[in-house]
């Protein structure tokens, strides 16, 4: 009995002691928290660029130090005023790091690792005084990421898909070289709008413009990106390895974890994938200023250029798309063999035929390569077909026996960031209908069919927002054109691939006629086909439609239809276009035009062009000509 009582007494002593200990350590921690918060206030830590970067704050007004975070996700903030107050957020973060550890993975120390690391460094925080939560999820994640280097990936333009014509950028995080890693298994970091399956693309475009979509970071194995871009969308992937050191990469990855499931404003024009990825690079190397040049627009190639201008690109690798490889091997085949490759993809029995059997081994390999890959390309666009699958398998068995085509001499295209810059200013002098004029044009972006070709695909022109004004000899000034968007997408058809070609132009243009001239808003589009005469020359035929609002007409709103034929050529430093267009509006007005353009690239960012045009509307007829100098910046 006595023994028992003493045991109870000991237990009581132990309990009270531990309660006492707990209480004192709690109050001690609280004071330490307050002390750190005071220290942070005194040092104005919340004004430091790195803290603002970690919270993705932008200055709303520099003078009164007002800020707003690009993130509008409550999960991203520990203070309820966090979105607008870096100061409150910093204070709340310090408190949260000292919260009891029982929450584990949900603890602020586990969720905001980069914040903790930075604050701890700035305040010389004694980590022994922190609660020690188990950040299991974070630890597993870090182990899986195993990062040492970072590569910026540029998925090049995708002809025929307007939603991707500027290309797309993502980051890839690679393990140490010593691990002999596979790039296929590296992780790709992508920032994009969180689109749900039911959303249609028009709705998507609208909401993207107006900010209706939340943007999120996603991480997935790089092979999925290769599958999507190289094999399905047929876009080449440029891989620019950055010179970030392991400790810098560590900062980036640590912060990336904080962005898990966090939504951001998403705007196509500026706060897009490219912008967000540059923010991550700034997190890695705090003294960089990559973002200030992107006030209104962040075009993927421009964002890669900014990184290049900082001297951060160590090494460049290009991953050709599926179609590029097929086209390259096809170019090695004689015309009869091309036809055989095509037929073989439809009838694998031809592998037993004499034409195939008599070919050399290298030719057999090339024919099989084209047949197999063309078949897979076809199958990727249609519902699974058992017969197609059977032919695919059969051809693969043949490849297994004959060996693979030699792709070692596959040419690498011109590095897109070495192409001309994307904004342009043009000065021209010319003559229209006997009167001389000088003309100025500003274009926000990006490339037209006469601009210097290197780095841009032949037959693709995308322009957004262009203004053209004239000063006439007579003293009159006119606005000639206001172009919101003009896209020309000419993709050549051949025996294997049958893409369609199209053009669209939305804007205002000055129409000259017998009754005078008038600035007319219009929407003009066309769709048709184009083919290659050789590597340097495309020709096209389009059926066109037009809507025009013209106050010179009795009925202002007019619709019409017509035809366009033309040529697009590029040889060395010369680019040329020839276009014949005619259309008829419902009110009977018929217009004809023939336009010839010849441009010469003086340097990467300087070109000269000559435009000659003849137009006819009813009895009205005139010719105009101009010589222009264009500068890209």
């Amino acid at each position, binding site marked *: 009995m006595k023994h028992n009582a003493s045991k109870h007494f000991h237990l009581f002593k132990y309990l009270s002691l531990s309660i006492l200990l707990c209480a004192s350590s709690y109050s001690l921690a609280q004071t330490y928290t307050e002390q750190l918060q005071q220290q942070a206030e005194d040092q104005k830590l919340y004004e430091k660029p790195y803290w603002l970067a970690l919270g993705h704050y932008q200055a709303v007004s520099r003078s009164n130090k007002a800020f707003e975070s690009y993130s509008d996700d409550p999960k991203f903030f520990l203070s309820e005023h966090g979105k607008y107050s870096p100061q409150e957020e910093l204070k709340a973060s310090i408190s949260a790091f000292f919260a009891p550890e029982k929450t584990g993975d949900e603890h602020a120390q586990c969720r905001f690792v980069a914040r903790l690391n930075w604050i701890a460094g700035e305040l010389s925080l004694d980590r022994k005084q922190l609660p020690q939560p188990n950040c299991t999820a974070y630890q597993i994640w870090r182990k899986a990421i195993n990062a040492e280097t970072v590569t910026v990936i540029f998925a090049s333009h995708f002809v025929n898909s307007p939603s991707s014509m500027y290309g797309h950028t993502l980051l890839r995080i690679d393990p140490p070289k010593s691990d002999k890693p596979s790039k296929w298994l590296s992780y790709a970091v992508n920032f994009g709008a969180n689109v749900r399956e039911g959303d249609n693309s028009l709705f998507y475009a609208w909401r993207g413009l107006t900010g209706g979509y939340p943007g999120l970071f996603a991480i997935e*194995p790089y092979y999925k990106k290769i599958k999507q871009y190289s094999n399905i969308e047929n876009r080449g992937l440029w891989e620019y390895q950055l010179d970030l050191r392991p400790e810098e990469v560590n900062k980036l990855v640590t912060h990336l974890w904080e962005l898990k499931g966090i939504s951001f404003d998403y705007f196509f*024009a500026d706060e897009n994938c490219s912008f967000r990825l540059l923010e991550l690079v700034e997190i890695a190397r705090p003294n960089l200023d990559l973002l200030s040049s992107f006030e209104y627009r962040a075009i993927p190639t421009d964002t890669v250029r900014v990184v290049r201008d900082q001297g951060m690109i160590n090494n460049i690798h290009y991953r050709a798309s599926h179609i590029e490889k097929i086209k390259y091997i096809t170019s090695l085949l004689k015309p009869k063999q091309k036809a055989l490759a095509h037929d073989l993809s439809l009838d694998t029995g031809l592998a037993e035929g004499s034409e195939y059997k008599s070919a050399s081994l290298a030719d057999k390999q090339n024919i099989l390569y084209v047949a197999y890959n063309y078949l897979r390309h076809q199958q990727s666009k249609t519902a699974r077909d058992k017969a197609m699958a059977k032919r695919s398998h059969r051809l693969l068995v043949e490849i297994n026996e004959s060996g693979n085509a030699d792709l070692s001499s596959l040419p690498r295209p011109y590095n897109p960031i070495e192409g001309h810059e994307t904004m342009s200013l043009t000065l021209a002098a010319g003559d229209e209908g006997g009167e001389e004029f000088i003309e100025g044009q500003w274009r926000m*972006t990006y490339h037209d069919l006469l601009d210097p070709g290197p780095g841009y695909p032949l037959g693709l022109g995308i322009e957004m927002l262009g203004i053209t004004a004239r000063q006439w000899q007579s003293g009159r000034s006119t606005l000639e054109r206001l172009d919101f968007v003009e896209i020309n997408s000419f993709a050549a058809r051949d025996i294997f691939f049958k893409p369609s070609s199209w053009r669209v132009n939305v804007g205002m243009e000055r129409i000259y006629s017998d009754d005078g001239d008038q600035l007319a808003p219009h929407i003009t589009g066309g769709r048709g086909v184009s083919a290659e005469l050789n590597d340097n020359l495309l020709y096209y035929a389009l059926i066109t439609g037009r809507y025009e609002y013209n106050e010179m007409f009795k009925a202002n709103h007019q619709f019409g239809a017509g035809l366009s034929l033309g040529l697009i050529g590029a040889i060395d430093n010369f680019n040329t276009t020839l276009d014949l267009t005619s259309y008829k509006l419902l009110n009977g007005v018929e217009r004809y035009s023939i336009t010839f353009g010849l441009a010469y690239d003086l340097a990467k960012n300087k070109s000269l062009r000559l435009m000659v045009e003849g137009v006819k509307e009813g009895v009205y007829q005139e010719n105009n000509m101009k010589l222009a100098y264009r500068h890209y910046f």
Partner: protein
Amino acid sequence: MKKKILTGLALVCLSSASLADPDEHGCGWGNLVFEGKSGLAPYVLASITNGTASNAMFGMTSGTNGCQTHHPLPYGGKSWFAAADFADSIIEDIAKGEGEALDALAVMIGIADEDRAYFNQLTHDNFNTIAPSSEVTGDQVMLAIDKLLTNDGRLAKYVVS
């Protein structure tokens, strides 16, 4: 300064995330190796919007991805059976005798440098066992490779724990 200018630069790098159906990831679902458009559905959908075709998001942490686990797990604690996800590329590489998909599989299995050429040759020589028909699934490809390695004197060490 808030910089929301609707410049008409509407179509810069549209991108999307979380499009895939939840079964798209990994093994145990018998994805056909010679697939058509439907097997690529998430990718095709993403290609309309220039985005991400995966619900993986940050979800690469899930250990074995529900795949078979009687193997050693050298690559980030994941079963190499997860490579069933890109079995289509693997069998193409096996037919060719080399390639990045086959390299990725070798890394996942943990095959050492000195055994890589042998691994490539062994799989190449056994193409017809690994991909016996056009109806083969990703999991069947993985099982066939597993069996091949298990029965091989030099490579068995990588799959038998």
